[in-house]
């Protein structure tokens, strides 16, 4: 049994037309990502990592090229169809968490369920609570973002990303705002999700962080410069155990 390609990019370009100048953010990206991979996208600032991730996340159309997601040609879809794909197949995790303020963790996690058109969900709150329990925040479901630490907020965001059981999680510098210990906790969650079969694609600046993925793609000037596979990725849980115990 061959693993199917979740993502298949052919000659993807992206040009931002700002009026005065045209910014060529992507200049022909070819990439295939299989189900169950854990990929890190690295590269200097401005090389098009976020642009690529936005296209993968069906938030934006490429200027040219073809993008198949589970065999579906995303570049031909309209706004609503893209929204439905984002809701059902993709979970987003952002560097700045992007939680709704003045809203409990539970209600935050609930948001993707509210926009779920595929099924009628009667146990939304239970599902949200389950997702929060999985990321270790079962006790904090009624906390507001401003009552949570950065790491905890990011865990709420991860719970939100996985509540609709997507097959793909996209994270743009998810550990960018976190200290190393908290980063490890987040990475452990991603590795856990990945072990359960979720494909994870993560943009990061830190080579250390990339060591916890299975495949590293390096970008330069809107193109893929090189890529490498890690035969034995580091295990975040193990690293966490090595750290001296700390009060949370």
């Amino acid at each position: 049994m061959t693993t199917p390609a979740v993502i298949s990019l052919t000659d993807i370009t992206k040009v931002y037309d700002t009026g005065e100048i045209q910014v060529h953010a992507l200049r022909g990206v070819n990439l295939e990502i299989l189900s169950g991979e854990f990929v890190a996208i690295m590269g200097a600032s401005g090389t098009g990592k976020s642009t690529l991730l936005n296209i993968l996340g069906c938030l934006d159309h490429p200027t040219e090229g073809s993008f198949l997601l589970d065999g579906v040609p995303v570049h031909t879809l309209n706004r609503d169809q893209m929204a439905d794909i984002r809701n059902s197949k993709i979970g987003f995790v952002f560097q700045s968490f992007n939680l709704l303020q003045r809203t409990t963790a539970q209600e935050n996690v609930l948001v993707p369920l509210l926009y779920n058109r595929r099924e009628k969900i009667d146990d939304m709150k239970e599902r949200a609570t389950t997702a929060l329990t999985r990321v270790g925040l079962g006790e904090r479901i009624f906390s507001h973002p401003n009552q949570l630490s950065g790491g905890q907020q990011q865990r709420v965001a991860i719970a939100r990303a996985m509540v609709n059981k997507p097959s793909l999680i996209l994270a743009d510098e998810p550990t960018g705002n976190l200290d190393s210990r908290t980063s490890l906790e987040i990475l452990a969650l991603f590795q856990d999700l990945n072990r359960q079969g979720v494909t994870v694609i993560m943009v990061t600046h830190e080579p250390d962080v990339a060591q916890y993925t299975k495949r590293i793609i390096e970008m330069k000037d809107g193109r893929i410069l090189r890529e490498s596979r890690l035969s034995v990725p580091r295990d975040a849980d193990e690293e966490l155990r090595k750290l001296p115990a700390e009060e949370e």
Partner: protein
Amino acid sequence: MRSANLFRIAYQSIIKHKMRTLLTMLGIIIGVGAVIVMVAIGQGAQASIQGQINSLGTNLVLVFPGVFRQAGVSMGGGSFTRLSFDDVEKLKRESTKLTGISPVVRTGAQVIGGISNWSTSVYGVSTDYLSIREWPLSSGEFFTEGDVRSQTKVCILGQTLVKNLFPDNDPVGQQVRIRNVPFKVIGVLSEKGQNSMGMDQDDIVLAPSSTVFYRLSGSRFISQILTSAASTAEIPAAQEEIRTILRESHKINEGEDDDFTVRNQTELASTAEETTRVMTILLASIASISLLVGGIGIMNIMLVSVTERTREIGVRMALGARSRDILVQFLVEAVVISIVGGLIGIVLGVGATLVVGAVTSWTTVIVPSTLFVSVGFSAMVGIFFGLYPAKKASDLNPIEALRYE
């Protein structure tokens, strides 16, 4: 998306911004409240003027000197002709369609008697007056044709005079002095109450027209002639008859205008109705402006809120909200704010109406349809003024919204 989810989203956002919501609502609350109070006052005026005209007598036909124009009384071109006793006599002699005829000679006078004195209006009328006005006596009796002929100094008191001059004993048979002329009280009118202007209709003394005309100085003309037709159906014929007789009496040539005005109750009512309707519309329009301002307030706050929440909109889109979901979210917010504001406005408006009614003694009428219309109207205000901001929100590009600082 399921509507339950939709309301959940809007509800959350409203709850999250209590102060902002309240301030936004305030415009609608005041607008709807003002409309309700104003319409209630207008309708009240209409109803009470109507009631007052009805209380004049059902088949009443009135004759005034001069010509009524729309804006009020104006003299018909030439000199002002007064109504005279000759006119009244001629009507009595020649009319076939009138069941009652009474001149009204009116004067203000001080009445001394019983335990006190009292300034009031004295009406000199004929024996037909009570039947024309459908106004029974509560005790005693009315004067007779003989009293009118011989200018007898007898009078009938309204309830207000009874209360003030004879609070403890029956005035019938007592003496009073009207402008220092002694009169014998022979009867008492039943109570009629206040009219819409707060005027006390019981503050009245009736006496034979001839007595008032000749024995009380300063009242030497007939201000109107009251008549009644046999039935409502006969009113137009009666009016025509009065015109013919009076034109003859006033020697008006063919082609010349009347120098008097004949009005039936329905005409009086419709003139009054027209006036009060215009007043109601005017009041309601002024109040509507505040509702409009409230609507603009909603739009203003919604626009600010869309900008403020650009990032939230981006996040929602990233999580799978379609453009329409965002549009509907903001629309529902606007509509819920305006409907809830409208409902609060109704409660306050009705309350304020009751207070106004109690404090001013104006009649106010709350028509239930006004309430439904106000809620419907505020919902429309919400949709109308919420649409633009909602459209703006839903048209946002998810990426740009997410990047928004």
